[in-house]
């Protein structure tokens, strides 16, 4: 097993040829997206450079406070991203439910994964804590976004059926059961689909990174299997907490649709 080939600045610069090719294509085709492509490429480059240096500092100076702070920052950013995506469509109680379910769903899976599955030492080791938290929180953020979208759509398009069920004596939970089930499906299906194609259709990012950095493919695969199961758990737990508490926010104390 050889170590990874270090990329010089010039070698990385060669990769920008892909951006130039895309820019040429959109210009020839008259697709007005040059600005977005340039901005996103520059943002991606700057953000990753900053993150790289920040991680070097964090890894060289491990501290429970810094690790905790980074996880908190990730959680806050993920919750904020979900709020921004549904701007003006979320009630305050639903926002609280989203923040609560993201925190509980991801943190419980993260702690279980690090302390029971990987068993890291010291317990706040940022080399494990930070990337694994990123994967669990990032995937849960995608899952909960899909879940919230499906929940909002369901509560709007199926309002007549929910009212009909309430009129016939259903509890709010029974009246929204089919919406809750399809919302849970919407939240976890992308994770399930990616598990089905994994290793055959594509090699996942974390595994590719580990293999490139010289880790044995068998070790990389063991990590990938564990992290995928962790992601499935975090996405499912986040979605189910959000749904179990979230549907109630559409009803008042007198079990009436708000």
């Amino acid at each position, binding site marked *: 097993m050889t170590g990874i080939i270090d990329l010089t600045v010039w070698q990385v610069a060669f990769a920008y040829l892909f951006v130039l090719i895309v820019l040429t294509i959109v210009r020839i085709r008259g697709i007005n997206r040059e600005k977005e492509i340039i901005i996103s490429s520059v943002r991606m480059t700057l953000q990753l450079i900053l993150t790289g240096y920040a991680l070097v500092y964090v890894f060289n100076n491990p501290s429970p406070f810094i690790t905790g702070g980074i996880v908190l920052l990730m959680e806050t950013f993920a919750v904020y991203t979900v709020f921004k995506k549904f701007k003006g469509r979320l009630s305050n109680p639903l926002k609280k439910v989203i923040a609560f379910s993201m925190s509980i769903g991801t943190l419980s899976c993260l702690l279980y994964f690090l302390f029971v599955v990987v068993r890291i030492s010291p317990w706040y080791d940022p080399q494990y804590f930070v990337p694994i938290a990123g994967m669990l929180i990032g995937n849960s953020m995608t899952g909960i976004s899909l879940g919230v979208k499906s929940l909002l759509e369901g509560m709007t398009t199926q309002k007549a059926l929910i009212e009909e069920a309430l009129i*016939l004596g259903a509890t709010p939970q029974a009246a929204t059961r089919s919406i809750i089930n399809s919302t849970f499906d919407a939240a976890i299906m992308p994770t399930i689909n990616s598990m089905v194609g994994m290793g055959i259709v594509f090699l996942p990012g974390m595994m590719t990174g580990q293999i490139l950095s010289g880790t044995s493919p068998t070790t990389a695969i063991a990590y990938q299997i564990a992290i995928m199961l962790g992601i499935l758990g975090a996405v499912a737990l986040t979605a189910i907490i959000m749904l179990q508490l979230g549907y109630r926010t559409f009803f008042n104390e007198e079990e*009436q649709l708000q």
Partner: protein
Amino acid sequence: MFEFVDVRYKDVLEVPTLYIEKKKITTLVGPSGSGKTTILKLLNKMISPTQGRILFNGVDLKEINSVAHRRHVVMLSQSPAMFEGSIRDNLNAGLIFQERELPGDEVLRRILQQVKLNKPLDSLANTLSGGEKQRLALGRVLMLNPDVYLLDEPSSALDDETEEIIIHMVTEHVRTENKTLVMVTHSKSIAEKYSDAIIEICQGTCLSRRCKDDRNH
């Protein structure tokens, strides 16, 4: 049974006083948009007054659990939604929501006969016409056998002949089973023929209430 005390609902309805008697047939009449459906929804606790109180057997509706109340006081909306699935699924829907035992197909067929819906139980509910859906929804409510029926224009999508048969069947059922019926209707002749009391609603307020016995209750 129901008593309105200075009830107001948003800008839609303002009823200082109104009484609906137990084990009687009461009809609400009045022009479209006058607040008849709002009254039924208030009685069923699908909405609550923004001001005032509604008493149910002397108890403020606010004190009563909404789900438990709706299981005794069942409403049939004017354009009832059909649940996905067959006629059988729809007839059983209310029982499933109320976690009650499901009957056999014989009982379901008898209900279909009562509401004059000559369709197999396995037919898909969403393929039915407007009038058929209305009758199926009425059957769904009859299956629950509640103490109080709140029917919002139960025959609006039916032809005159079927309307007469259906209203006759419902009122007969209510009288023999000693139930209470509050019904919204556009037809003054139906109101006159079948009800014990007629309440006239106009522009969100109750204009008059008259009983067949005394006419000026």
